[in-house]
């Protein structure tokens, strides 16, 4: 570390910025301000007075950035900002959660429509897409950076200091520990007794010329660093997820009986929807007796929906344009909570629509006759209507216009979507052996004769509806990283929280037999250990110098 080393009176050479000598613990005069030890009775033992980069250098811009991110205070501020921002994003629904029943789901309209002026501001500030906004992502990234720098800034020196430590400690170091006692003259025997008992309590003993260090659970000090590594892995996994190689996500609607290419698979895979099933809880069923009240209150409650599907793979993709040869890969059913997996892809049952028509049958009647028989019938496939139909009786019906989801807007007929949820047709009917055709407009509950002079009218005879199954297509190679990260995080948290790093020093000094102790947490526990170790010896119980101080404060208060 260059020229600025600090040599302690014990002979140890410490790096610049050291607060307590790494070997003997004697406070290094000029650096006491760093850990706030001046005018304090007790020493700050948080990082054993080791030299931390952030506390030592503050010149270059790199130093300044490093110092900013290694401050826990700043880290906590970042966390609190993220916390508040996250909360704000739930005031109104995010864009993806705009309710189905909203009249207009265009965010530019929806927020103002539903929430008035606040909604408008919310939208204009971009809060309707908060969690994918650049500033939110930067905020999370900053927490990540802070995590890394903060950990390095402490881990490296702390590890070094704990490695360097010697059992023989300077008097100032020992007497300024929170737990300390000076027992005067104590026999070697008593000392041995105490050491043996500490051994029994699974302390590791280092004995150097009669100076004792008893230490246990040092590994727990690494807990926070381990858990932070876990968090970093999770953040990196989230980052990698943005690449399509690691993660893809698509959605497809497949009608019963339909075969479709699975999106985002390079047209390699196809899905066929054999059958869709929707089950609801039947209040009459004896088994559901206990749910009766709830069903009555809430109306229909879904029990299961599932798609029986077959997956095919295109065998040969080389000959473009030619009918592809398909090979069956998998057959089975998809249910909510029970996805289907094949070749790295996962298919999830995500939703369904039940109001689509698959076909409609029209009958042709004479306009004047009220209850006449039908003169012929045509069945039109509402997914892909033919251009022309011919009835057995020789009527020709031509599809002039097709509105899959018909709506009248500003006096003009139009279709809101391409899905046959409310099909309507303009049909041109030509009777057998005639050249004179006439136009009719027909749909659900609509039958309009444009001229009013038609000889024939069309009426819906029959129709079939079918379910459309909504299926999510997903490939995700990032999940293992999230799992590993989460596991490491939890291990680290437990490592740091459920074990305590305890150290007890026993130093025969010219002032008497000194005993001092430090733990990072749970002082009650270490006092118990000491009480146990020194029972029926001449050792004096340590005084808790912080509690003493508190009591003084307490009496002052009264």
């Amino acid at each position, binding site marked *: 570390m260059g020229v600025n080393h600090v040599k302690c009176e014990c002979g140890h050479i410490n790096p610049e910025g050291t607060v307590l000598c790494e070997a003997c613990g004697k406070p290094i005069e000029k650096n006491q301000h760093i850990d706030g030890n001046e005018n304090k009775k007790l020493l700050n033992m*948080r990082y054993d007075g080791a030299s931390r980069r952030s506390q030592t250098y503050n010149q270059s811009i790199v130093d300044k950035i490093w110092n900013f991110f290694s401050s*826990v*205070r700043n*880290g*906590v501020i970042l*966390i*609190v900002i*993220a*916390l508040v921002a*996250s*909360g704000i*994003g*739930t005031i*109104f*629904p*995010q864009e*993806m*959660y*705009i*309710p189905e029943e909203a009249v207009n789901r265009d965010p530019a309209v929806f927020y103002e429509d*539903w*929430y*008035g002026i606040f909604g408008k501001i919310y939208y204009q500030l971009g809060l309707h897409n908060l*969690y994918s906004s650049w500033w939110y992502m930067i905020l999370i990234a900053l927490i990540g950076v802070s995590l890394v720098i903060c950990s390095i800034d402490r881990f490296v020196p702390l590890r070094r200091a704990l490695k360097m430590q010697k059992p023989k400690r300077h008097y100032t170091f020992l007497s300024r520990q929170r737990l300390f006692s000076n027992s005067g003259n104590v026999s070697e025997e008593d000392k041995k007794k105490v050491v043996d008992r500490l051994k029994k309590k699974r302390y590791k003993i280092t004995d150097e010329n009669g100076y004792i260090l008893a230490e246990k659970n040092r590994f727990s000090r690494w807990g926070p660093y381990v858990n932070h590594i876990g968090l970093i892995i999770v953040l990196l996994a989230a980052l990698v997820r943005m690449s399509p190689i690691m993660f893809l*996500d698509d959605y497809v609607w497949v009608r019963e009986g339909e075969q479709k290419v699975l999106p985002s698979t390079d047209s390699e895979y196809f899905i066929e929807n054999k059958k869709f099933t929707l089950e609801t*809880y039947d209040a009459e069923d004896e088994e*559901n*007796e*206990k*749910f009766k*009240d*709830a069903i009555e*209150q*809430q109306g229909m*409650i*879904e*029990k*299961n*929906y599932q798609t029986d599907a077959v997956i095919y793979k295109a065998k040969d993709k080389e000959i473009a344009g030619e009918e592809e040869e398909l090979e069956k890969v998998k057959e089975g059913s998809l*249910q*909510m*909570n029970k*996805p289907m997996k094949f070749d790295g892809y*996962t298919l*999830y049952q*995500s*939703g369904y629509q039940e109001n689509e028509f698959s076909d409609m049958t029209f009958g042709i009647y004479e306009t004047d006759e009220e209850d006449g028989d039908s003169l012929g019938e045509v069945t039109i496939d509402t997914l892909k209507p033919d251009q022309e139909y011919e009835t057995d009786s020789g009527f020709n019906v031509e599809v002039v216009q097709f509105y899959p989801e018909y709506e009248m807007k500003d006096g003009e007929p139009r279709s809101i979507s391409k899905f046959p949820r409310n099909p309507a047709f303009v049909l041109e009917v030509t009777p057998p052996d005639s050249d004179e055709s006439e136009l009719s407009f027909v749909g659900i509950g609509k039958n309009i004769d444009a001229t009013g002079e038609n000889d024939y009218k069309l009426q819906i005879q029959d129709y079939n509806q079918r379910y459309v199954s909504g299926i*999510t297509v*997903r490939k995700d190679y990032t*999940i293992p990283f*999230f799992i590993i990260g*989460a596991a490491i*995080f*939890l291990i680290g*948290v*437990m490592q740091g929280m459920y074990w305590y790093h305890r150290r007890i020093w026993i130093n025969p000094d010219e002032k008497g037999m000194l005993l001092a102790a430090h733990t990072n947490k*749970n002082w*009650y526990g270490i006092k118990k250990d000491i009480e146990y170790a020194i029972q029926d010896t001449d050792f004096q119980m340590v005084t808790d110098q912080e*509690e003493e101080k*508190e009591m003084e404060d307490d009496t002052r208060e009264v």
Partner: protein
Amino acid sequence: MGSLIEVSRTALYIAFILYLVATLFFGATIKDKRTADMSKKGVAGTIGISVTILGFLAQLVYFITRWVAGGHAPVSNMFEFVTFLGMSLVLGFIILYFIYRLGVLGLFALPISMLIIAYASMFPTDISPLVPSLQSNWLYIHVTTVSLSQGILAISFVAGLIYLVRQVDQTVRNKKNVWLEIIMYLLIVSLGFVIVSSYFTATDYQATFEVPNGEDVSEVNFDMPAITGPKGGEMVSDGKMSPFFSTPDWFQGDGAPKKFNTLIWSFLIGTVIYGIIRLILRKRIAAKIQPLLHRVSPNLVDEVMYRSVTIGFPLFTLGGLIFASIWAQIAWDRFWGWDPKEVWALVTWFFYAAFLHLRLSRGWHGEKSAWLAVIGFAIIMFNIIVVNLVLAGLHSYA
């Protein structure tokens, strides 16, 4: 089947009564002049904890019988979930009692748990069947772990509250003791909610409004007299109180006017009760309790507060984030979707992470920590009440 549900219901009542009895015994641990050190166990404390455990067992009977009767773990609606939270809080208390033997913890923890269970009982108690997304074992694992962790984190609030009542200066009015008193007041408001709900349910109050809804008219039933009514609503029941004003427009969501009305009632009754108590005590409530806690060691209470966070935080991470993701992955096909419940789990987690950092690295012990524990509990309650009833109602879950 019917009788099993009956058993379940009775067991819950018994648990409730036992918690009440146990509270009285823990109260006696304070009065007991002979035990100078509150953390040493006395007779009253031993009886108190025994009765608490009996109550917990009774509640376990409630839980198991309801599970058998319904065919699925009873954590699937508000009543079941919140009741379970009350039970977790008691469990958290029992665990920490055996670590620290701190009787005064029961004196505060049990009434809060009772308040939570009473609150739960105000929701429909029918056993409901499960919609597809809820038919997964991961749901139970997730919900029970979250609830358990929240119960244990709530103990840190209880400890924080004890710490504040014990330590905050009550000689002259200041910002701190006013805030502390607001906490007391809010606890009484939730009692007010239980009282009004029970009263109007018992008297079977019904008032019906007709509210224009687009081109249709829909009916809205109020089960409390309407102080505030739905906008444009017309009262169709005879002889019922008409609302004084209509609920503002921007109270969106399912049944917003009704919830708002209930809120007003709770505050009204809570305020009246609080006023009466103040008249009798002639002191802030916290100031009245303070001398009783004189022999409680603040250091020990602080330790309990931290210890419960160290148990609750990893458990919350596991249940609220990890198990939740696993379930979401299986049920909704994405493990994280930024829906309000998920976001608020994250907010809670961030908050307790901040709590730990401030404590470990910035030395926020004692009073500062105690205030944080109170805020943490407020966030948890916000999760359970506001997120479930207000925010989540804004969008339909898939």
